[in-house]
């Protein structure tokens, strides 16, 4: 794991004032204390120039702190040999920085080669990594970087960083230089990779959406490397610790939260259901008893056919499909709440039918249920996370939340 212990970075020297006191303009990073648990992706997010990249670069000592320490698995990074330190940490940057004069295969094998691996081992490892990031080794290993597209280059960059299987990875806007479609794909693939590899990752981005998507934990930075809030994405969205965080997250944080939850997280409403061919009388009773005033007509396989208003249900006789009105949109349990509500908005309905893989009805999701769920997620004051005395404490993660993230 990686720990920042009162880390500070100043670029200018202190100035002695006339009254004897020394002053200094605030540094790029001021007294940063943060713990990144092992095996998690911790995203450092914030506006340009807030010190997130500077903080990242202090971990592999591309920038040396002027104060404080950075502990890697309990050992002060400053006490380690800098070359050995850097070779043990995976490093991915936005422009990738592949060596133009070396083949892709050689690029990937950079660090192992520096450590003296044999040619065979290098080649095997290089091929293995290329496959891991979705590139066919036979096709790519002898190509040069200038023959690859931006997305392909990014993948190679990630493969290269993984070469010696480092426990820690530093990623500085790694997906920033590609178009949104490619970026989305790369993000998804990387998350899948992380599920397998469980590395400790520090990830810098200025894009709050990326932070929410990628992070197990998110640290929101403001100018001067000050962490305004450190918590899970859900926590940041539901309970921004300050107005800065609320603004940075965006006025649409409600919608962003919806993207984090799925239909499966909801309590579904069970409607009155009638099967085709069944006797109408019993169905009618059920429909009248139910809150909606509608009966959901399904077929033998429990697939929805339509709604019948209770008044239109005949007193007796088999239920006829012709009575049913066209069906509202249906969603499955994996659909995000955001997409589901979007569909409902499109169709101009209040409720959506939830079906399983076979298409059978599971229940109904309603807008009210969604709002209820959102409200349950929020606790405390609108902006601040408070301690026992009610004093807001930004930057300190709630222990229970960290556990929850893990």
């Amino acid at each position: 794991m990686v720990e920042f212990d009162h880390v500070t970075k100043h670029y200018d020297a202190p100035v002695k004032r006339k009254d004897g006191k020394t002053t200094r303009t605030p540094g790029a990073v001021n007294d940063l204390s943060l713990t990144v648990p092992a095996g998690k992706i911790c995203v450092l997010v914030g506006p340009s120039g807030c010190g997130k990249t500077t903080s990242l670069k202090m971990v592999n000592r591309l920038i040396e702190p002027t104060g404080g320490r950075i502990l890697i698995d309990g050992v002060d990074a400053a006490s380690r040999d800098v070359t050995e330190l850097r070779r043990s940490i995976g490093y991915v940057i936005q422009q990738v920085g592949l060596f133009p004069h070396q083949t892709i295969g050689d690029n990937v094998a950079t660090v192992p080669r520096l450590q003296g691996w044999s040619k065979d081992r290098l080649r095997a490892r290089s091929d293995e990594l290329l496959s891991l990031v979705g590139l066919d080794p036979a096709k790519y290993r002898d190509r040069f970087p200038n023959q690859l597209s931006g997305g392909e280059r990014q993948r190679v960059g990630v493969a290269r960083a993984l070469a010696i299987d480092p426990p820690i990875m530093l990623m500085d806007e790694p997906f920033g230089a590609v178009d949104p479609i490619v970026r989305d794909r790369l993000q998804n693939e990387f998350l899948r990779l992380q599920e397998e590899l469980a590395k400790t990752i520090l990830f810098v981005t200025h894009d709050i959406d990326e932070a929410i998507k990628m992070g197990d934990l998110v640290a929101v930075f403001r100018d001067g490397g000050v962490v305004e809030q450190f918590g899970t994405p859900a926590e940041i969205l539901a309970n921004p610790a300050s107005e800065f965080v609320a603004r940075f997250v965006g006025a649409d944080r409600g919608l962003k939260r919806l993207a984090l939850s799925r239909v499966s997280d909801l309590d579904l409403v069970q409607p009155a259901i009638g099967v085709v061919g069944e006797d109408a009388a019993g169905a009618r009773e059920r429909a009248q008893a139910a809150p909606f005033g509608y009966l959901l007509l399904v077929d033998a396989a429990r697939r929805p056919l339509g709604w019948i208003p209770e008044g239109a249900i005949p007193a007796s006789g088999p239920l006829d499909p012709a009575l049913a009105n066209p069906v509202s949109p249906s969603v499955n349990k994996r659909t995000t709440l955001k997409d589901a509500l979007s569909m409902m908005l499109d169709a101009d309905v209040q409720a959506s039918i939830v079906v399983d893989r076979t298409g059978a009805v599971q229940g109904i999701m309603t807008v009210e249920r969604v709002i209820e769920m959102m409200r349950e997620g929020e606790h405390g004051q609108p902006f601040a996370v408070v301690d026992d005395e009610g004093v807001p404490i930004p930057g300190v993660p709630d222990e229970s939340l960290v556990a929850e993230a893990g």
Partner: protein
Amino acid sequence: MEGQPLVDFDWILSHLDDVVERLVQHVQLSIIPVVLGFLISLFLAIWAVRQPRVYGPVVAISGILYTIPSIAAFALLIPIFGLTLITAVVPLTTYTLLILVRNNASGFAAVPADVLEAAEGMGYTRWERMRRIELPLAVPLMIAGIRLAVVTTIGLATVAAILGDSFGGLGQFITEGLQTFFPTKIYIGAVLSVALAFLADFLIIKAERRLTPWATARAGRV
């Protein structure tokens, strides 16, 4: 010279060993300054990369040396070194400096910043970075400089012969042809020096292709 045929091929054929001897002298006279110049300028360029403030003065001095007309430079050294090889080699070397220092420095400057950052971040030491990343990537521009320097030096070496016959080389033919009103010698000297320059140019381009496979591998995306 009126009435003389411009080129007497019989003479050339019967004096082939002279021609070859002068050719070899000329090659020697051209290569030594370029090699020396390259080593010096490489050192200067690396220094300039480490200490950017050095670059300005280095270029200024090289520039001044370059501005001095070749024959004057040779003439300036004669009273000091006499008509020895040094008198020819020193100015020829300093002429290459301006071209080579600028191209070498540009070569290093052309290495993309992200490549350097990635190399540093991944744990290359300074030396390794210079040797494995910066130098190889600087090669294209450095070779362009060498090309220019070689061609220029071959040309300037012809002038050395004006000062006397101790340097030899193809310029010698030109001077003798002039003094004895024998056009054949003039043309063998002139044509061969141009041919030599073209040959050198061609060979260096070929060498560059060999050394930079990544630059030629442009064709189409995978």
